[in-house]
């Protein structure tokens, strides 16, 4: 029987791409197209766009803080306002107990809160992903050992451990980020492990092994690409948790005493008894800021979930 050529593929080459490009370049172009598609899908979620807008606003504010308000405003020795005075023309959000502008504090505080939040998230996600992928892919005793370690960290109450570690390590931004990261990776590890387990048992992994692939190739070329979207969506939620954790630790007085963060503002406000003397302008701005940022991350996370899981679209 003469061998008839198989018919053409269902979709022809995208007309926008010049055919002379090498396959690698075209693959990159295709990836860009896929990213563009994901973005337009994300845009369709109003919640996602609102969340993104809020985040962009806060990040821009944090980055531009030195431009908008000079750091000298944070200097206690140069404070010019009346301590704990309500909002006025000169101080739109009132003053703290040293006479500094609460607006300046909130703006500058965002830098610390966001930075620590992001740093802690990076630590947490990296540890969690490595552990999760190793446990899911290698399985057997590697899995058992790693999962017992994960369980250990999961079971230990966050606050006591964080307090102990912060006390031992000393209060600095890096240490706080480290403490938060070290205590929040188990969640990521479990999720990543589940996905890695699922991917590792798929037939194309076996095919790659039969082709001669070693574990490094399998992990980097097959498992990681399939796990990254999940990690990404999870990361967004972890940032929210990390920022809240930083707030908690700073509120408890474990943060860097020389730096202003939203948590430390709340701590100071509490110490001053701001609630009982009715100095709402000291409590509300940092509180609302935290609320908005965490909410924004959650909204983005929800929209991302819909983008990455096509079955949730159109809800």
């Amino acid at each position, binding site marked *: *029987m003469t061998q*008839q050529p*198989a*018919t053409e593929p*269902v979709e022809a080459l995208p007309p926008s791409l010049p055919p002379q490009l090498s396959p690698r370049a075209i693959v990159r172009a295709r990836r860009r197209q896929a990213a563009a598609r994901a973005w337009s899908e994300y845009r369709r979620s109003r919640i996602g766009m609102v969340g993104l807008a809020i985040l962009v606003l806060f990040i821009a504010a944090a980055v531009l803080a030195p431009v908008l308000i000079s750091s000298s405003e944070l200097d206690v020795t140069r404070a010019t306002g009346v301590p704990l005075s309500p909002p006025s023309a000169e101080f739109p959000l009132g003053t703290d107990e040293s006479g500094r502008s609460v607006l300046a504090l909130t703006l500058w505080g965002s830098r610390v809160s966001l930075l620590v939040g992001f740093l802690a998230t990076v630590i947490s996600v990296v540890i969690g992903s490595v552990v999760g992928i190793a446990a899911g892919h290698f399985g057997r005793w590697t899995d058992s050992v790693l999962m017992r370690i994960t369980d250990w960290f999961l079971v230990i109450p966050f606050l006591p451990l964080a307090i102990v570690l912060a006390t031992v390590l000393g209060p600095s931004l890096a240490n706080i980020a480290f403490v938060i990261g070290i205590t929040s990776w188990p969640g990521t590890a479990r999720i990543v492990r589940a996905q890695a387990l699922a991917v590792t048992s798929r037939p194309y992994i076996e095919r790659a092994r039969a082709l001669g692939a070693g574990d490094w190739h399998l992990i980097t070329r097959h498992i990681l690409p399939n796990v990254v979207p999940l990690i990404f969506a999870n990361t967004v939620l972890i940032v929210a948790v990390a920022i809240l954790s930083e707030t908690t630790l700073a509120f408890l007085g474990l943060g860097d005493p020389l730096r202003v963060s939203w948590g430390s503002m709340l701590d100071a406000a509490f110490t001053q008894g701001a609630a009982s003397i009715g100095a709402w302008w000291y409590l509300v701005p940092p509180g609302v800021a935290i609320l908005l940022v965490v909410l924004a991350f959650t909204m983005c996370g929800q929209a991302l979930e819909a983008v990455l899981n096509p079955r949730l679209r159109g809800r």
Partner: protein
Amino acid sequence: MALLEVHDLTVSYPTRAGDLPAVRGVSFDLDPGETLGLAGESGCGKSTMASAVLRLLPQGTRTSGSVLLEGEDVLAMRPGRLRAVRWTEAAIVFQGAMHALNPVRRVGAQIAEAIQLHDRVSDQATAIRVGELLEQVGLPARQAASYPHELSGGQRQRVMIAMALACSPRLLIADEPTTALDVMVQAQVLALLEDLRRELGLALLLITHNLSVLASTCERIAVMYAGRIVEEGPAAKVFEAPAHPYTKALADAFPTIGDRASRRHPHGLGGDPPDPRDLPSGCEFHPRCPVSVPVCPTLDVELWPAGPGRRAACVHVSDRQPEAVTGGAPTEVAP
């Protein structure tokens, strides 16, 4: 009166890019106690049609035509009547039935569910009936206490059949009941279906892409392609002397062991099943047809007579000559 009469059934799925026609004007009858085999591959619309008979299609699907079950049009029934009719008059054993069992409930409970949804029966009577059903499909009654993962593929398929028989329907629709099973288990399941048919007087609509399975189990065969029936007739005749070239391709796909013509000579069909959104003009099969003639892309094919009790939608039979497309029965090798 025929048990099942399908008249000009058309089913389309609405999509963003327009309607996707899955079934395009299918008509056939099934008498009580009769077996009809429906042959076709993925995408031809056979599963859609099976679901349509019990109106189990997803929300928003557009249907037209009629499906008369014991004289009543299923497509026009009120929801209450439909629920009463489902399972008691006709039941389906779905494709991939083995995965249709709830893994956290015992199989006996799942069969019981089917019974209790239709009748107010006491728990004790239900348990007895479940035991009877299991025995009827060749499983010991005590298997009712097993979970699905404790059973083998063949046993799960039997449980699905037992579930389908729970309300003593007169029509059983089996969609690819043996596709994932081993040859021996497949033979057991087919023998079971045949026994049930005899004992209970069931009518059987058997859907699969393996034409030889249909040829050995059914009285009549209808072949579907691109949402339409392209050939129908008595099973043995259709299998041994196909009138439509697609039927011939299906028949050749699984060789007769012992037939010299297929030894080291697999027969395949080039190309792919057509995309329902972009069907070829005229006869939908013409791009892949080994015997197409210039008139095929322009001709509006319909089922023309192709011998006693046989019809085929092919231009080569339209002049009323009951010829097979090429050759006759495969030659056998003397053992």
